[in-house]
């Protein structure tokens, strides 16, 4: 197997991590919906935390993307 094909396969393997990130983001917004349904008055307070949690989880997805780019292009 030559280097270019191995790089492509490596990059493809690196983004399998996005499965976990998908579960995590779904979890955050699922619990946001549940908590707003239980207590609609808390919506503004919980929403900021939900957005912060979403951004931190999305960061992990982008770490995987950066590894894939490093494998492909460096």
């Amino acid at each position: 197997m030559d280097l270019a094909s191995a790089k492509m396969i490596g990059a493809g393997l690196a983004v399998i991590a996005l499965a976990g990130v998908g579960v995590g983001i779904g979890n955050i917004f699922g619990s946001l919906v549940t908590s707003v349904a239980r207590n609609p008055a808390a919506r503004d307070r919980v929403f900021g935390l939900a957005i912060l949690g979403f951004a931190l989880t999305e960061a992990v997805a982008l770490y995987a993307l950066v590894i894939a780019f490093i494998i492909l292009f460096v």
Partner: protein
Amino acid sequence: MAAEGSNSIDALGQFQLHPVLGALGASVNFTQANLMMVVAGLLVLCLLWFGMKPRAMVPGRLQASAELGYEAVMSMCVDTIGPEGRKFFPFVFTLFFFILFGNLLGVFPLFFTFTSHIMVTLALSVFVFLLVTVVALKEHGLHFFSYFLPEGIPIALAPLLVVIEVISYLSRIISLSVRLFANMMAGHVMLEVFGAFIIMLAGLGFLGYVPAALSFGLNTILIGFELLVAVLQAYVFAILTCIYLHDAVHLH
């Protein structure tokens, strides 16, 4: 350009830096990134200067937006850090608006996103890390090192836990910088790739026009998403700085 005759898509070439402003720029290596940083800084100054000039009791639009920015960052600082947060307000305000305007300016065509370079975000992140550590050392002295030994753990676990805590403290530099860098770079790479798809598909002739139009629609939606990510990432950088400052000032 982006697609060289359907061989491969040059996704990362857009991030290369060239000197701008002719011979004067070439002599000091003043690149697009520097130019956009100057533009972003001037825009923030203009927003505040011209925004607060009217000093009306009932603000007009520009004054309202300047006051809104001030109020948002001030409440972020005081809610997260506590009453001592007022000391750090100028720094967090500068950081938030510099990153915000840097991210937003990159969405316009022919402009450059200076936050899409790891060196820029790494510089900002190292600055925040050094600030937080120096504030903690000044506030608590040598008692600062008790931060790495949480309370209520069995003493047998202590050596392992201290190592883990130190590594996770040091990894703040990496996580803070790579989060912003990867978000910005990935957004612009996706715009470039889908833009190249439009050209490549339309070049296929009559059959290619419909997929090319779909790709164009997707690119439009992606620009909207880029705007959201720009604001969100600036907010996350600022709020994490406030959280680290809270840790530095209090729970040590």
